[in-house]
């Protein structure tokens, strides 16, 4: 069945709630209204108010109460309306959810999924466009997942809900309706007309920690995730370079085997992400590649990222690392 990413995420919630009555879903506007992006539409009606409900506007409250509920024995799946709003909950995520199993010697655990729309491309300015993944990947005890299409979004979300530990689930909001490739001046192909919008109706999981090679190639490896998976494909095509593109899907745990095998084959590596450059997840990937593939590298590892500035509003397309910037960097790497 063809689904948008929103429908796939809604469907994953629906199946998880149907399969396990311990699964509860809450957040700002997620109950009656079904979420500002509609990812929880119809769940309250189907499963009742005590399993899908609205919360006060308090991210700290949402995550803090979810930790208590998880410790009780439920499996909360909570929504932060925009990733940009997660910071009031950061202490609860970092000092509490991430550490509960370890600090209590396994006495208490925290099976919890924190979903949040992330990334730019919607003229959201600095408060509706951020990509804060590295703030979570830096924290021991968290898993961080970023899908790039409806099929994976459903399978990864169900795997995240099954996972016994806290999972940060970042949803690139620019991909909700179609595979945006960075060409903002052109209409996108809706998921309903795209193969990756073909989502099985049954319950299935996509394992956390497994990357996917979305395009095989021989000249250079592109490590990317989220919206940039599609931007990278456009960039490689436009540069006319035979790039192997890896959609990491899960940042922690990271599929280092797939990364290393690819870079050892191509000898070149370009990392593409929307988030700011310095201390972004690309820095980790770059360190990993240089230490594990050093003798195979024919060019320096290169990062194509957002600038180290706040995310702008009117100048969005000069900030966003679009296909032209990807293509330009690919060409540069090939010249070495």
């Amino acid at each position, binding site marked *: 069945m063809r689904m948008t990413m929103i429908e796939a995420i809604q469907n994953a919630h629906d199946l998880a709630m149907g399969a396990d009555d311990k699964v*509860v879903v809450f957040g700002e506007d997620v109950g009656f209204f079904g979420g500002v992006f509609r990812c929880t539409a119809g769940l309250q009606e189907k499963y009742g108010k*005590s*399993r899908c409900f609205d*919360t*006060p506007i*308090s991210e*700290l*409250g949402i995550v*803090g*109460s*979810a*930790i*208590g*509920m998880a*410790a*009780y*024995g*439920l499996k909360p799946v909570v929504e932060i309306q925009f990733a940009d709003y997660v910071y*009031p909950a950061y*202490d*609860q995520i970092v*000092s*509490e959810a991430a550490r*509960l*199993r*370890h*600090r*209590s*010697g*396994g*006495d*208490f*655990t925290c099976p919890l999924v924190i979903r949040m729309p992330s990334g730019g491309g919607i003229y959201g300015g600095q408060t509706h466009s951020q990509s804060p993944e590295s703030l979570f990947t830096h924290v*021991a*005890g968290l*898993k961080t997942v970023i899908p790039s299409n409806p099929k994976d979004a459903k399978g990864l979300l169900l795997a995240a809900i099954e*996972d*016994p*530990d806290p999972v940060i689930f970042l949803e690139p909001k620019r991909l909700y309706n179609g595979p945006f490739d960075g060409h903002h001046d052109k209409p996108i192909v809706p998921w309903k007309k795209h193969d990756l919008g073909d989502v099985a109706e049954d319950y299935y999981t996509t394992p956390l*920690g497994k990357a996917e090679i979305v395009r095989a190639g021989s000249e250079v490896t592109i490590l990317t995730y989220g919206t940039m998976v599609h931007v990278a494909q456009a960039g490689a095509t436009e540069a006319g370079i035979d790039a192997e593109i890896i959609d990491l899907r899960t940042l*922690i*745990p*990271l599929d*280092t085997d797939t990364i290393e095998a690819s870079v050892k084959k191509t000898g070149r590596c370009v990392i593409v992400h929307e988030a700011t450059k310095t201390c972004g997840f690309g820095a980790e990937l770059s360190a990993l590649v240089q230490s594990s593939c050093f003798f195979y590298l024919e060019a320096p590892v290169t990062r194509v990222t957002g600038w180290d500035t706040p995310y702008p509003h009117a100048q969005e397309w000069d900030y966003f690392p679009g296909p032209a910037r990807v293509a330009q960097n690919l060409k540069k790497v090939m010249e070495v």
Partner: protein
Amino acid sequence: MHKDPQPLSLHVPEPGCRPGDAPDFSDFIIPKAGEARKPALDASAQSMRDMAFSIVRVLNKDGKAVGPWAENLSVDQLKTGLRHMMLLRAFDARMLIAQRQGKTSFYMQSLGEEAVSCAFRMALKNGDMNFPTYRQSGLLIAGGYPMQMMMNQIYSNAQDPLKGRQMPILYSAKDYGYFSISGNLGTQYIQAVGWAMGSAIAGDTKIAAAWIGDGSTSASDFHAAMVFASAYHAPVVLNVVNNQWAISTFQGMARGEAATFAARGHGFGIPSLRVDGNDYLAVHAVAKWAADRARAGLGPTLIEHVTYRAGGHSTSDDPSSYRAKGEGHAWPLGDPIERLKTHLIMLGAWSEERQTQAETEIMDEVREAQKAAEAIGTLTSGKSSSSRDIFEEVYAEMPPHLVKQRKEAGY
């Protein structure tokens, strides 16, 4: 007529007395024991508004239990209460010495506040969950948690249930209704509300108890907890332990020198009251009332326990550098152990001789547990937690990067 604006100045709250001053509690209004009324279980916050400004007290100065909050606790229950408080005090005394002897890195005692946690625990049922701070060890002692296990944790020895990962006294004991303590103040308050919401969602009968100190009520976690508890009528008892001091900062800072901590509940429509935290009977009665409310589906209750931190904040703290000398002795609500002892003597069920004898027996009991714990090891000697355990339980299943790092570390 326009006046020229005057320069503004910043008001910074300061306590009435500091070192060098005579201790002064003259502003502290203490209602007589027995004076506070006992509202119906389903009383609204509005109807008992005054109780956030009064103090529920049961034991009067003669040691008699008076007023509507005086319950019919049996002599055995009272003796058990006295024993719990004495155990906690003896335990604290031994562990303070152990810290000074270098057997552990750090310790925090409950001195002067024993009634709060010990009496409260007896009003809960097995299966209920506390989300404590570091000064409610009485919940474990009164809950029957083995003292040696507490010491194993304090010593981070080979039988520490937390495997050497946590600072001393940041216990976790799920089976004893004691949530893993965080060193980050206040975070547990909203978690307690979430746990209680979970119990309600599951159609369970268990309730939660949240704990926080006067100072940490300033943290946003406290306010989020109040919003959520009030919105969802969570079956939770919200405890604020006002022991007058947040390290060196007096309690007036956190409440802006206005109203009371209990009065914070009014803005959220939560029934709120204050209790004499050094009165075992009063704490027990108020705890029971609040727990019954939660269990009956009547929602949260805010309890401000008015008490005094008779010791330092921790072994790293010297209160003589910021508190007036003799302030502890001047504290008008007395000592919780002395007061319950006097009550038992007044009932004809106890004597000074038996108290002295009990002190010796209890100290022996604590020493025995200590000996057993030290036979396993302390932080600096014997068998300690394995460094291999650093890598375990970060996740349910160890991810490849941690397997690699553990190997690199040599385990």
